[in-house]
């Protein structure tokens, strides 16, 4: 039995500190990782060299390369071009669409970051939903979950799997090959899709629209004001509007009546679209106002403004051809996250008016300026198409209703595909190390100008890099000091010695699932892999399989909307947390069963 040394106690304290900080999020997770990277060598638990070895690890270099390759594929629009033929095959049936898009997303997600694949498909899914009148909530969750499941198809599909070989190297265990996990991933994706095709109508929201219809008549008024942003109306102020009253501004109308003035026309010939909030409203002014019937009528009555029967002044400027509304979803890594609408100042920067925000199944319409934005929040914006188009570069938002064609480089699609193939061939045929092959592919894309080197740098998510690199030394310390072995022995001792393999693997699967729901997937992998390898060694089970289960089960994150993909789809899908618990909870159980069965039958 291992002795409990001071070093082990120190490492245990650091693990507890890391988990605690992951949960309370006093600082961001990548900062926690950097903290570990600095404290561990200071406590002499790792050498200074080991503390920073993460940056030169295969995992980190592979992730950088995968992100650049993903950005390259995105840039050429190659993925969007896949959508049309895929939909043609799928036809009009809802289940066939779910199957077709899910398989495509899963396939793409196996070579890209899951969140990237999910973000790419969001506009296309929205289009399909509109065209075929299938509720978005019926499509997004199955497809989003497929993006997560697709990450288990290859060893580069998600960060925990990329990390796995580096963690195994410490035990001198042979590394996994790129497609070693594919059979398991394949069954996981298939069972995920099958689950939604068969049980989707029972577990997904949107199918139970009768419930909403059943809302009694007396609550209808509220629902109107609650779930609806209303529509555009044209109004006119009378010629004595400003007499004997304090000046009335656009901002005041918004605060008082929850209406948005999106255009204004003053005599003789001044027309302003998206007037500034401080703008005072004068006599004989035409106003184009967005709001619910109830609020517009109340405003007209109290402020003595006339509602026009037909469109006159704004007939042309605000026609469907020139202006409209789009739903803009806050993109992953958007610089708008964590800021409120006042700080983001969409009005001045882009000349568009935010009408409402959809979040966690609720529509927010009041006091929008103070709402702090998060990834996946869907903002309903009104503006001219020209101005809305400026939002389309994807830096801030993903527009679920795309306007016009994106600025892509379709002529480079061949090069992008070529370099991806080169990387794959190098991995499969020449058996060169993963990071080298992927970096070759990434470099190839840069040299053939699929994307510039600056675009490549910008596409890399440094948060992910530091999270990975910073947590690797914690893994090293856990192993080097004997902490992992100590915990493993304690756990096995508590279980009473001999544990059947299948039970041990299932316990590891459940443990990893719980960890990934509470702390980051990378954190869970780094902490659990040394532990389970030791446990497996002591119990006489294949340690590589135990580690693989951790790598896979950290993708088993469907129950809470905390996974990035879930967070992204939550807003546009109008899902609530309870929807994830219901549909995701069952899938989590299926995931564990399928994973353990496949490994038990084919890998052991």
């Amino acid at each position, binding site marked *: 039995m291992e002795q409990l040394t001071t070093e082990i106690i120190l490492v245990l304290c650091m693990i507890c500190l890391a988990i605690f900080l992951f949960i309370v*999020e006093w600082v*961001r*997770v*990548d900062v926690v990782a950097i903290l570990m990277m600095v404290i561990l060598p200071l406590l002499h638990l790792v050498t200074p060299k080991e503390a920073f070895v993460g940056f030169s690890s295969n995992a980190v270099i592979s*992730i950088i390369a995968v992100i650049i390759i993903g950005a390259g594929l995105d840039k050429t629009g190659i993925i969007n071009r896949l959508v049309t033929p895929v939909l043609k095959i799928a036809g009009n049936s809802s289940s066939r669409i779910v199957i077709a898009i899910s398989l495509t997303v899963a396939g793409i997600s196996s070579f890209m*970051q899951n969140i990237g694949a999910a973000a790419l498909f969001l506009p296309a899914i929205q289009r399909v939903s509109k065209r075929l009148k299938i509720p978005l909530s019926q499509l997004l969750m199955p497809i989003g979950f497929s993006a997560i499941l697709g990450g288990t198809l290859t060893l580069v599909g998600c*960060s925990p799997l990329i990390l796995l070989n580096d963690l195994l190297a410490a035990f001198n265990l042979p590394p996994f090959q790129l497609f070693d996990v594919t059979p398991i991933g394949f069954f996981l994706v298939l069972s995920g899709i099958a689950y939604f095709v068969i049980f989707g109508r029972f577990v997904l929201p949107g199918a139970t629209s009768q419930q909403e219809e059943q809302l009694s008549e*007396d*609550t209808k*008024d*509220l*629902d109107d*004001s*609650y779930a609806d942003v209303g529509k555009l109306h044209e109004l006119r102020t009378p010629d004595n509007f400003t007499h004997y009253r304090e000046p009335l501004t656009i901002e005041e109308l918004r*605060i*008082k*009546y*929850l209406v948005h003035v999106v255009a204004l026309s003053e005599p003789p010939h001044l027309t302003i679209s998206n007037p500034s909030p401080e703008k005072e409203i004068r006599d004989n002014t035409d106003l184009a106002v967005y709001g619910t019937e109830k*609020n517009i009528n*109340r405003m007209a009555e109290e402020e003595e403004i006339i509602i026009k029967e037909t469109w006159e002044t704004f007939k042309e400027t605000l026609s469907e051809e020139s202006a409209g509304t789009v739903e803009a979803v806050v993109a992953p890594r958007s610089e708008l996250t964590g800021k409120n609408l006042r700080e983001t100042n969409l009005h001045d920067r882009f000349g568009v008016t935010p009408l409402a925000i959809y*979040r*966690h199944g*609720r*529509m*927010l*319409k*009041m*006091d929008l300026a103070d709402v*702090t934005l*998060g*990834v*996946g929040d869907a903002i309903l914006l009104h503006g001219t198409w020209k101005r809305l188009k400026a939002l389309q570069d994807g830096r801030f938002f993903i527009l679920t209703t795309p306007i016009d064609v994106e600025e892509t480089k379709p002529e480079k699609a061949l090069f992008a595909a070529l370099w991806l193939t080169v990387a794959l061939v190098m991995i499969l045929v020449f058996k060169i190390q993963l990071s080298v092959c992927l970096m070759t592919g990434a470099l190839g894309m840069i040299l053939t100008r699929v994307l510039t080197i600056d675009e490549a740098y910008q596409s890399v*998510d440094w*948060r*992910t890099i530091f*999270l*990975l690199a910073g947590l690797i030394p914690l893994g090293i310390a856990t192993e080097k000091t004997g902490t992992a072995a100590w915990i493993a022995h304690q756990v096995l001792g508590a279980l009473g010695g001999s544990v059947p393999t299948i039970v041990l693997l299932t316990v590891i699967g459940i443990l990893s699932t719980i960890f*990934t729901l509470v*702390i*980051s*997937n*990378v954190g869970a992998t780094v902490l659990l892999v040394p532990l389970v390898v030791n446990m497996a060694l002591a119990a006489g089970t294949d340690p590589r399989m135990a580690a693989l289960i951790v790598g896979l089960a950290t993708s088993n*994150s469907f129950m*809470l*909307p*905390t*996974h*990035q993909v*879930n*967070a*992204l789809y939550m807003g546009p899908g109008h899902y*609530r*947390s*309870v929807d994830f618990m219901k549909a995701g909870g069952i899938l989590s159980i299926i995931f564990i069963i399928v994973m353990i069965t496949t490994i038990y039958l084919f890998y052991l």
Partner: protein
Amino acid sequence: MAVITISRGSYSKGKEVAEGVASKLGYMCISREVLLEASDHFNIPEIKLVRAIHDAPSILDRVTHGKEAYIAYIQSALLEFAKKGEIVYHGLAGHILLREIPQVLKVRIIANLDSRVVAEMEREKTIKKEARSLILKDDQERRKWTKRLYGVDPWDASLYDLLICIDKIKVHGAIDIICQAASYEAFKITKKNQQQLSDLALACQVKSKLLDLDSKVAVTAEFGNVIVRTKTDDRKARKLEENLRVLVKEIEGIHNIELRTREMRPSADA
């Protein structure tokens, strides 16, 4: 038209002053009425409300938030009076319950400790030492209460617009000074302030109806548009939402209502 609150320690003749001001200005003078109204409205014995507003919260209160609930009821009742204007309130905590409205004239009347001790000795027929300790205890209790519930010290002069030492200025002088101050522009309840008062009253009314479901619910209102903020879980939030639907029908003056729940941040999966 003005709203005046008079805060006072024991034996500082605050009630006399309040009644004098009310009769001189032709305003309504209220104190216990607010408690009665609240106890009537929310079916709570008046004694509980008195204790809620007088004693510092007990440990049990701090867990159950019972005290906050009672205070919300009292605040709601007080605002119902205040929004009509022309009142002098000399009950407890007026300056705190209406602190969000700057146009409310907030007066504090203080008296010399020695004169208060003498008054207490006469009333309680007790010796000087005991009277002194009773007064100090009462002061301490009120001070603790305000600090616990609102994080402010009632002896902090910046909470008030006017601080009057009754020993020197006397009741008549105090009435004159307060009446004159009430006529200043800064304390005139305009249409805009009245809207503010109505909104605060509306928010308090909505809050008091939701406290059973969520003791930490926060409610704001602006021009009859009400935002309810909660940190509870999803299930409770849905219950709150159902209640909001009913409240819209029940409470007059709600134009729009919206529920905001706790933000759930995505994890940093990589």
